[in-house]
């Protein structure tokens, strides 16, 4: 038998980017402890629609912690209370009967609300466009072993590459800084020989774009590392700074 719980929800409603948002409350009675957080929201929406009310919009895709679409701020914590877990992997067994849960969208000027809990994260795409790529000739796949990569570097690059671009780091940062995301994307490529060629432009352009998009400065609070569902360390931010300093003094 699985446990059923009553959960008191309070969630953000906002009709559009310029509309005034407000909180709506709803009490769900039969929340199964095995439901994921998003399934609980599905049940909520079903009930709302049966009552002819508009469902609450939220972002998701994979529901298995790999796409980075979900990004709810649950009771004031990005992706909820558990470490290294995306909101879609959070289960209702982490809550108890009668709990109150407040759900908000990530709040940042650079992430305008599209509707309810859905925000526009295209600012991240523009940071990537500024330098989060390598320029290579496409065509027949080159021989895989032609560019040797030190194992340790490959491991590190891979660690940084696990960033799923969810934006929880921005949501949780007291300054709404995008440094962890940007740092991870830079470090991921700069660690590899393929990324070496464009490393100088990459770090400078991506750091500039971050400011351009209206994200805040980093104050080394490291809250981003605490909420990151894949555990990206703020070492990424330190590396971004090191690379940036090098780029300034290299002067090419």
């Amino acid at each position, binding site marked *: 038998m699985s446990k059923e719980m009553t959960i008191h929800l309070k969630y953000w409603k906002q009709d559009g980017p310029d509309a005034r948002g407000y909180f709506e409350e709803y009490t769900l009675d039969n929340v199964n402890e095995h439901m994921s957080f998003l399934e609980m929201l599905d049940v909520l929406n079903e009930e709302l629609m049966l009552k002819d009310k508009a469902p609450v919009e939220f972002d998701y895709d994979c529901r298995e912690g790999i796409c980075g679409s979900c990004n709810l701020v649950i009771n*004031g914590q990005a992706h909820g209370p558990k470490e290294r877990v995306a909101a879609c992997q959070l289960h209702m067994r982490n809550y108890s009967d009668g709990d109150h849960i407040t759900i908000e969208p990530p709040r940042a000027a650079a992430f305008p609300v599209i509707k309810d809990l859905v925000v526009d994260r295209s600012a991240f795409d523009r940071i990537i466009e500024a330098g989060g790529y390598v320029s290579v000739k496409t065509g027949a796949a080159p021989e895989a072993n032609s560019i040797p990569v030190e194992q340790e570097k490959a491991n590190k690059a891979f660690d940084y590459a696990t960033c799923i671009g969810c934006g929880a780091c921005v949501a949780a940062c007291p300054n709404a800084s995008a440094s962890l995301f940007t740092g991870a994307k830079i470090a991921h490529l700069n660690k590899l020989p393929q990324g070496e060629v464009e490393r100088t432009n990459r770090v400078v352009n991506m750091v500039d774009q971050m400011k351009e998009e209206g994200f805040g400065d980093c104050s080394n609070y490291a809250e981003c*590392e*605490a909420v990151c569902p894949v555990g990206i360390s703020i070492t990424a931010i330190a590396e971004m700074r090191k690379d940036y300093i090098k780029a300034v003094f290299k002067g090419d």
Partner: protein
Amino acid sequence: MPSFLKALNSQVGRKVMTGITGVGLMFFLIGHLLGNLTIFGSPEAFNIYTKKLESLGPLLYLIEAGLAFFFLYHTILGISIWRNKKKARPGGYKKYQSKGGASHQSLASKSMIYTGIIIFVFLIIHLITFKFGATETVMLEGEQARDLRALVLDKFQNPLYTFGYTFVLLLFIFHLSHGFWSAFTSLGMKHGDFSKKMQMAAYAFGIILMVGFIFIPLYIYFTGGQGSLIAY
């Protein structure tokens, strides 16, 4: 690559400069403390030390200008970063809490702007009191000099001044407990163990330095300026 000015203005540049100016000011504090400790030397030691400093003339002005620049730069960046956060998140959360774990959010890190501003105000009062304060003159090595030692011994008989000073220095430890570690992270030095050691060093450095600074006024106050550590 980016012009130097543009780099200074980037989000990385701002943080790096906060770190560099912060570390610079910490070095200054070490020198300041060593100077203060001459109060426990011979009766003339402290006044000789301050007289030597003042006799540096233009070099002293240069050092002072440098310090003022570091201090103001650090302050302005701090205020600007703090103001930017309002811009980057105009509407706050209804509910917000830290997730703990790796987070460095603490009372110290969240109150940097407030402890910083208090330190700023303190500095002004401190300069007015000692640097620009009126003193008696004494004869030292055949020349006239300010009797700063007497002023120090006198000021720290005043409970308001003594405990106000002690309080601000305690806030200083607080400021440094995040600032020291943060500065090294801002300068790109952070990898695993090193960072943890830096955090420990931050606490140790802050505490040793401030114990040194706080000891002097409290000692003077509680011994009524007659303590045996101070020679007459």
